[in-house]
């Protein structure tokens, strides 16, 4: 028993591990709660796009000596609003607009990296560096978590109505586009904090996978958000322990732990459905 608790406590003697755990609580909660809307509103692709397109923002900010978060945020917002602007014209469909902007921006990021002849500096951006979280990063993540949770609480009923029935909400004067833009801005914020944990390539996993797992186990939005946050934060912890004891890449371990939760939820879902069907018939 003692050895187990020692095993659990040991990483906490290092302040970088402690910061990592704190960061995962914040990032996991933000991404998982917002991810519930991403999954229910089928916005997984746009979430992925916003994460990827943050790359040129981060790279430029790094090279020019700005705050990396600021760079990611600006790039994410440009993408989010750019997709809306392009697809409003009706001549380009939204998924096409996403596909074009997303790859273009990501390629731009890679191109700028290649001009510096050093991919090593940028591996943290691509794959995340949860163990390199600073005190300032933690404060910013906490602020993002607070903003995301408060905005969702304030606009809960509007998000609900525009998600379930956009045409009725337009009739009562609530434009679905407004709420969509609110969500996109929140997504850009969540992505900014997710990048620190798992990097631009894998951030959408934090948005989609825990919420997708939760959606298989409950049909109640609030419960789905809570369960999804539990999945994301616990996956973050599993990833951190794996990284500490086995020396594996933390970002990848976190994402794989999320995938594991999803696999488990999927199995439970299937068993529960079988059980229900057999008890009914």
């Amino acid at each position, binding site marked *: 028993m003692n050895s187990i608790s020692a095993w659990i406590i040991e990483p906490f003697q290092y302040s970088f591990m402690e910061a990592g755990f704190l960061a995962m609580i914040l990032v996991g909660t933000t991404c998982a709660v917002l991810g519930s809307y991403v999954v*229910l509103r089928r916005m997984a692709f746009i979430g992925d796009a916003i994460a990827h397109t943050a790359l040129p923002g981060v790279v430029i900010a790094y090279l020019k000596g700005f705050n990396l978060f600021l760079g990611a945020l600006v790039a994410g917002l440009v993408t989010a609003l750019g997709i809306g602007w392009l697809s409003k014209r009706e001549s380009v469909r939204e998924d096409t607009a996403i596909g074009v902007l997303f790859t273009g921006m990501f390629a731009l990021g890679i191109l700028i990296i290649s001009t510096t002849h050093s991919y090593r500096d940028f591996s943290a951006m691509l794959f995340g560096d949860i163990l390199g979280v600073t005190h300032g990063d933690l404060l910013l993540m906490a602020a993002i978590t607070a903003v995301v949770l408060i905005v969702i609480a304030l606009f809960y009923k*509007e998000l609900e*109505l525009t*998600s*379930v029935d956009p045409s*009725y909400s337009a009739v*009562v*004067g609530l434009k679905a586009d407004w709420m969509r833009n609110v969500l996109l801005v929140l997504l850009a914020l969540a992505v900014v904090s997710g990048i620190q944990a798992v990097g631009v390539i894998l951030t959408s996993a934090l948005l989609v996978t825990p919420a997708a797992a939760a959606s298989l186990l409950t049909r109640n939005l609030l419960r789905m958000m809570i369960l999804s946050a539990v999945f994301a934060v616990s996956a973050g912890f599993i990833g951190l322990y794996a990284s500490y004891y086995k020396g594996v890449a933390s970002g990848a371990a976190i994402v794989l732990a999320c995938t594991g939760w999803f696999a488990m939820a999927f199995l439970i879902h299937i068993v529960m459905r079988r059980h229900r069907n057999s008890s009914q018939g």
Partner: protein
Amino acid sequence: MKMPRFPYSRHRHGPPAADTPALQCDGVCVRYPGADRAAVHDITLAVPQGSRVALVGANGAGKSTLLKAAAGLLPLERGSLRVHGSKPGGCCHRVAYLAQRGDLDWRFPITVRRLVLTGRYVHLGWFRRPSRDDDAIVDRVIDLMQIRDLADRRISELSGGQQQRTLLARAMAQEADLLLLDEPMNAVDAKTRQVVADVLRTLSRAGKTIVAATHDTHELRVDFDEVIHLSCGCTDHAGSIDKVAVLNPVDGLTASVTDTP
């Protein structure tokens, strides 16, 4: 009249003017964004307050388009459309619109009761939570539509008729003066048909105006006071109904309202 910038708010726009028709169209022409030709060319009609009007006609005759334009979902290309004297979208709380059932995301995790409650949101506006009065209104319409036993179910579990009753319950929870219903009787069970017909009659007696697009010419005489036929040159044949508007969106681009004996 200046349109309010954020019509979704608890601020009311005053009682409806008694002398204006609930819905008035003059030469209305509507085209879907991006479409080559207009879906509705030239519709002129007036729906007096408190009447029950059926819009009939074949697929593509423009029934849904006209309802969407009246609900403020589609912009007008030409002509004028007034809802209780205001522009479409200018008095949201007063107009309820029941879309065809396919317009909703039925898989979204929300209970029947909660969906009915969304009918109150237009009266709440931003940041306000439903009050006890709103809950009482929701309870009343849930009983009226006979969906009490479904109230705590997810909307994903409903049958077609139950979905329709839920949507009509929401439209009633809004306490609108004009109800725009797109195919309320389409593919519903006998019970739903009966409940909907009863409720429309009750609403009409309470002075509400109902405009419904329908394929179902079956029970027109019982359920509606008036039939307006939208088509390409067809005339209406429901002799017992007072007024028939013969609309010709393709050939002559004319519309007329004629009295039949």
